[in-house]
């Protein structure tokens, strides 16, 4: 399919800019002007709409396909969330209004949303206060690591290391490192979780924090979590909860009760806001009482008279991590989703996510290797190592699923499982869809025995077959070249 730039016809217009209705003309001096126009496409509105509609048809998405991508929580994104976020009373609201004099009063509706979402999240996680500022999960991790640093600095401790399990998502060590910490990798045990016996040797007075997902990326809940927390707290360290997998336990267990001090949540996972093909997300961070003074500026507070205000005067705050109050449009959708679900809906959400994952695990167990074979939470990891011995790798299984109309699970992650396939069905898939997925996986397992080449050829139903990633990295083409000057003349 041609690029929008390749569809360009000089002189064609997609949007008519109205003529000026003011008598003034701004004469920008030649020296300050660009010398060559930005070579943007020259296309009609229909061409634009058709181009992007056709592009959309070259995607898998939740709306069109089952999407059991592990640790990504690809659940249904209810339509009404989009409508509430588009309400003009929110979408047209300028973020600087609260800073105009008398401004707090101009945005009471928006501040109430921010305040109430934070209250909900505190109750769900057992934290004392939340900042809605962080703009995505990894951004929340970084904010959390900065909060931990601020806390230790305040207490005069220059702690240097953060302990992170080997099964952790790559953002965890990257976030800790960017906040200035050295990363110490902790091994998972034969049950797939961190073992207090191993962690004991890693914890010392330099330990600023232990950073965990719970359940972890294998979908396993660590029963020793409180022992680990005690160990870390004993040396003055803090417990960090990566909430990427909160969908498993929301309403059933609270990170605060498990001993965690800092929590980041991914609203674009657990709270059903759409992922947008790679964002925008929202990664609010909650903290236990001792860390409250360090939360980013500003914080929304509720006054005695029932109005809401932004508090800027926070001397120990880590400052601004986002320009304003977070990805408000995303937070708004999560708020609407929470209101719809309510207390019992939230619990049922997690319960069904766990039910669906265990159902898939039970049905797939006879056909694939299960490296950590125990009851899982909202997701589980299979290993295609036995299939790989016959020449069918996790990658081939993934591509085979595409031809069967299913988005593949997360592949080759976590790295501690060879040929990993990480499956998270979420609560919104029906039993019929889950069964269709199982059937496809069984068929693929059979093909691995009988006709591996059929899988090596996959996918054959997509606009392109397997792409040469090595060539992409060697002959880097990340920007369509400009029509050359000669052609222009």
């Amino acid at each position: 399919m041609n690029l929008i730039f390749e569809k360009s016809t000089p002189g064609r217009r997609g949007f008519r800019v109205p003529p000026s209705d003011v008598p003034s003309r701004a004469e920008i001096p030649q020296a300050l002007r660009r010398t060559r126009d930005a070579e943007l496409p020259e296309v009609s509105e229909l061409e634009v709409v058709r181009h992007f509609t056709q592009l959309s048809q070259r995607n898998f998405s939740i709306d069109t396909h089952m999407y059991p991508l592990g640790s990504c929580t690809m659940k249904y994104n209810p339509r009404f969330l989009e409508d509430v976020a588009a309400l003009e009373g929110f979408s047209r609201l300028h973020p600087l209004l609260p800073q105009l004099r008398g401004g707090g009063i101009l945005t009471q509706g928006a501040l109430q949303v921010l305040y109430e979402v934070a209250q909900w999240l505190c109750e769900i996680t057992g934290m004392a206060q939340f900042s809605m500022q962080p703009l995505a999960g990894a951004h929340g991790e970084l904010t959390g690591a900065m909060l931990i640093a601020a806390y230790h600095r305040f207490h005069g401790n220059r702690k240097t290391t953060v302990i992170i399990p080997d099964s952790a998502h790559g953002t965890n060590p990257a976030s800790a490192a960017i906040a200035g910490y050295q990363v110490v990798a902790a091994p998972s045990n034969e049950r797939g979780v961190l073992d207090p016996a191993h962690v004991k040797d890693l914890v010392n007075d330099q330990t600023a924090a232990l950073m965990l997902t719970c359940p972890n990326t294998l979908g396993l809940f660590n029963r020793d979590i409180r022992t680990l927390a005690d160990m870390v707290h004993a040396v003055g360290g803090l417990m960090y909860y990566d909430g990427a997998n909160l969908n498993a336990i929301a309403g059933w267990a609270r990170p605060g009760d498990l001993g965690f001090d800092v929590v980041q949540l991914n609203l674009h996972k657990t709270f059903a806001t759409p992922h947008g093909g790679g964002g925008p997300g929202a990664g609010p961070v909650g903290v236990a009482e001792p860390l409250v003074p360090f939360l980013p500026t500003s914080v929304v507070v509720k006054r005695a008279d029932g109005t809401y205000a932004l508090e800027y005067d926070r001397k120990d705050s880590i400052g601004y991590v986002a320009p304003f109050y977070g990805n408000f449009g995303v937070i708004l959708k999560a708020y609407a989703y929470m209101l719809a679900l309510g207390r019992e809906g939230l619990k049922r959400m997690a319960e069904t996510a766990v039910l669906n994952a265990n159902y898939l695990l039970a049905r797939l167990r006879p056909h694939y290797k299960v490296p950590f074979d125990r009851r899982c939470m909202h997701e589980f990891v299979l290993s295609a190592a036995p299939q790989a011995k016959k020449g069918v790798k996790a990658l081939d299984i993934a591509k085979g699923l595409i031809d069967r109309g299913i988005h593949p699970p997360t592949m080759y992650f976590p790295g501690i499982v060879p040929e990993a396939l990480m499956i998270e069905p979420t609560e919104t898939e029906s039993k019929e869809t889950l069964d269709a997925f199982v059937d496809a996986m069984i068929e693929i397992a059979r093909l691995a025995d009988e006709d591996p080449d059929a899988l090596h050829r996959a996918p054959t139903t997509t606009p392109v077959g397997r792409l040469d990633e090595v060539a992409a990295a060697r002959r880097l083409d990340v920007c369509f070249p400009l029509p050359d000057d000669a052609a222009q003349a």
Partner: protein
Amino acid sequence: MHIPDDRLYTMEHEWLKQEGDGPARIGLSAYAAEQLSGVTFIELPKKGQTVKRGQKIANVESVKAVSDVYAPAGGAIVEVNGALEADPSLLDEQHYDAGWICRIDLADAAELDELMDAKAYREYLNTLAG
């Protein structure tokens, strides 16, 4: 897998080839090339740099992995293979000749005793296969 007899090997899959009295040539074994399956980029060592045995001298990238290359023996790096920057695929297909990485003027020839000969390296690879 082709493991030439004319050179020595490390457990990290580098080879070292002595060339008369001149500096030794360093590269990656067929096993390393297979593991990388498509080198996309190499960060070469600096000419003139002095390295110790086991010190990181280069960084090799494939699509989904980054691997370090270590000095099989200590010494001064007297030459680097600039051709790899333009064409990293030399490491895939010609890792024993045109795909060499650098030449080291060895500081202590005794360090070579720590390396494996081709036979020992083949046996070592067999232990990895399981």
